[in-house]
């Protein structure tokens, strides 16, 4: 068993991160190549100024009109996305592992706090799922794939939470946690989670079209 744990907590972590990072880079390169080959005119309109203006406007909570009209959803979404990065990066257990492997470490969240934040992430995902089920215009767009995406993000958090509390099947839970975390990382470049890098691009283009050509705001 330890050999298997060694594998998923050693080489597989490398594999997962490499696929995650190289996958995103590869995706970015493909997009840029495709733009150069087929839609190079977008460069005539893209400007740094208007791209960044739009991206920052959309990152500012409650600046865009859309965020003012759906404050509950956006608040939860902002918090969810922030915690999605903060919790795993500043989690003590993760830092301990990294410290053992690379002799580097950084400030860690208090375990109790991390535990609460984990629950918040899970609740945010439950909210997304319920919203998908209840709000007609969202339900209309929803297929089982959308729930699948939510589950893929939820699993590392749920299993991590259960493992931390050592409620039951501790060993199996950690193994499930590590595997689900790796699956999530691997899937990011190949699923709609790639919005992580595509969103800034579409935003930049729309921001430039609106700002540069139409002299109007797009938020």
């Amino acid at each position, binding site marked *: 068993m330890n*050999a298997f744990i060694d594998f998923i907590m050693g080489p597989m972590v490398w594999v997962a991160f490499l696929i995650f990072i190289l996958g995103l880079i590869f995706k970015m390169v493909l997009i840029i190549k495709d733009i150069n080959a087929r839609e190079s005119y977008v460069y005539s309109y893209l400007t740094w100024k208007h791209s960044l203006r739009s991206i920052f406007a959309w990152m500012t909570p409650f600046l865009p009109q859309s965020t003012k009209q759906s404050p509950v959803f956006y608040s939860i979404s902002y918090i969810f996305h922030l915690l999605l990065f903060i919790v795993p990066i500043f989690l003590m257990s993760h830092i301990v592992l990294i410290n053992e492997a690379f*002799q580097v470490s950084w400030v860690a969240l208090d375990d109790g706090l991390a535990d609460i934040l984990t629950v918040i992430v899970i609740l945010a995902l*439950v909210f997304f799922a319920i919203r998908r089920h209840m709000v007609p215009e969202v339900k209309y767009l929803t*297929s089982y794939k959308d729930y699948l995406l939510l589950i893929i993000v939820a699993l590392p958090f*749920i299993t991590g939470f259960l493992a*931390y509390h050592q409620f039951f099947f501790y060993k199996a839970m950690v193994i499930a946690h590590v595997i689900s975390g790796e699956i999530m990382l691997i899937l990011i470049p190949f699923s709609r989670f790639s919005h992580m890098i595509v969103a800034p691009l579409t935003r930049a283009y729309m921001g430039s079209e609106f700002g540069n050509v139409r002299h109007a705001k797009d938020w």
Partner: protein
Amino acid sequence: MKPWKRKSINRETKMKQKVIFIGFILFLFTAVIAFSNTDEPEGLERLDNSVFENPHRPGAVFAHDDHNEIAQIEDCAVCHHVYEDKKLVEDESSEDSPCSECHSLKPTEENSISLSVAYHKQCKDCHFEENKGPVLCGECHIKE
């Protein structure tokens, strides 16, 4: 309302959606129920972790003599090693002094291995190598 405009999602996907949705909720429910399950196992022998100012986890469970008997370790120096000038000193052991004498809480110039890392590596490296024994946080830091 124009009923023909509502394109009904076909039955099968609707079922699939329901099953996944309900499964998701059930899973969370179990998690919450499990919260209440907090029995402290009796008679665990733990390492003294009082050197740590603010321990994040309970002291690791470790029954020294039982461990060595099962693991068939007779030489103390296997674990209680001695280093001088960053080199292992053969045939010497350090079982009389606490680990914290050399390993401080934070890595230092002379000793880059902090106390917790020393413990973790000491146990886990061997357990991985032997393919036996606990290697996950909660296998040693059993909840109090």
